[in-house]
């Protein structure tokens, strides 16, 4: 389903983040991408999420080469992906419910149908009773769960999670992982970038290690 062919990414100034990476991920897999800070984990997710373009090589998702997507078609591609960010990227001047409604409005789902789906997503992550709250009043774990609700409300089949348990204590981290695992059991493909080795060992899924821009 996801295929990286000889992908290289370097930033202006010449720093090579990824070098000649080849990767194949099957539909429905849950994969941990690990490595030290600066190893290129986030860059790899950004490339797969089409937030950045590779310097060279090809990235295929399904039958589509997303490294060749035009700027105007990138948003339509992103609608197929749920993204969970380490820093949450929530709208703090909106309610919890409004944050989850945003991806639906982008998909032109409005009214009662949108509210129903947003509430279902909040229910799934255990935030049904906080829909009127502002994100700033939520704990770190709750904010991350809200981020997951926003990522899954559009029913994507691929979820990219960048350090979803960073800065969370163990209980919250397992809560988040439990949600992601449940989504994976429901058939979603999930890529998780993390440096938390205990988490990787505990969940026993496929592990990809990035070091010096190469994958092992």
């Amino acid at each position, binding site marked *: 389903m996801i295929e990286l062919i000889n992908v290289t990414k370097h930033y202006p100034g010449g720093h090579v983040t990824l070098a000649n990476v080849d990767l194949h991920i099957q539909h429905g897999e849950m994969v941990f991408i690990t490595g030290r800070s600066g190893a290129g984990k986030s860059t790899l997710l950004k490339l797969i999420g089409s*937030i950045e373009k590779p310097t060279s090589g090809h990235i295929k998702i399904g039958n589509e080469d997303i490294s060749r997507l035009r*700027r*105007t078609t990138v*948003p*339509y591609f*992103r*609608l197929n*992906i749920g*993204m969970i*960010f380490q820093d949450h*990227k*929530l*709208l703090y001047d909106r309610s919890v419910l409004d944050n989850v409604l*945003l*991806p639906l*409005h*982008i*998909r*032109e*789902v*409005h*009214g009662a149908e949108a509210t129903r789906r947003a509430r279902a997503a909040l229910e799934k992550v255990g935030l049904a009773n906080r829909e009127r709250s502002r994100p700033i009043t939520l704990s770190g774990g709750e904010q991350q769960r809200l981020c997951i609700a*926003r*990522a899954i409300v*559009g029913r994507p089949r691929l979820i990219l999670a960048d350090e979803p348990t960073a800065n969370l204590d163990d209980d919250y981290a397992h809560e988040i992982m439990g949600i992601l695992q449940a989504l994976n059991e429901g058939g979603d493909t999930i890529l998780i970038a993390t440096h938390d080795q205990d988490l990787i060992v505990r969940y026993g899924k496929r592990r990809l290690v990035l070091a010096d821009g190469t994958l092992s």
Partner: protein
Amino acid sequence: MSLGAHAQHHLDSLITAWQRLRAQPLASAFSILVIGIALSLPTGLYLLISNLDRASNGLAEHTEITVFLKPKTETATALSLAESLRNEPGIRKLRFVSREEALLELQRSGLDDILTSLSSNPLPHALVIEPTQTSAEQIRRLDQRLRQRPEVDAIASAEAWARRLTALLDFGIGLTWMLSTVLALALAAITGNTIRLQIYARRDEIEISRLIGATDRFIRRPFLYFGALQGLLGGLTALLLSGLAILWLNQSVAELATTYGSSFRLALLDVPISLLLLVGGALLGLAGAGLSVTYTLRDFD
């Protein structure tokens, strides 16, 4: 995506734009007032010209053309000419003034002493004509037609005066267009600047929306509605300002008109022009917002 969902999104964008306007009442009110004042300048000039045009037409309704016939023209010839002219187009009323009647009128006006010293009546027969059409161009054409008659010696008409007034009004119309164009650009610039500040204030929201799949069109829409709403409300302000100015001035105009025996009053903007002002304001706001949002979003790429 269904048409209903698309329409719903437009409605949501409009509501969002309205909420953004209301979220900063003071800033919005100032922007709308500035736009309103900018639009009220050409509107005021247009009102001045249209009212002047109306007033000049009213005066011209009473315009008379006096045709002096050659001194040796016989009374029968003069009467025959008067009769033939009565049936011509462009002439509403014609009065024949014989040289004898003219002399009597002069005597009644207090020039009796001078006239008695003359050995004969020096006055010619005259025709006093009220034209049906009162525009300068139509009076000029009638004047030309009358001059082609061999019996006609001289014509005294308001044509020159009307021509000057028309030229002045034409100049005013040109000035209105020029002012409108300059202030339209100002309006677009004001809206553009407001939108640019808004986009920067919502930078995080825009970047997050893009990350989760929002197209530029989705992001642009509330800003475009905001610009159009601001322009529309600016147009409405201009309409109110010009209306208030007319009501205020009408008192003085009424007093002035009374001294001329006229019931003339300044007229408000008519419905088509009022609609043009509102729609024009909205379209200019939309254009300013469109340009601003396009260029500012490029900075975020």
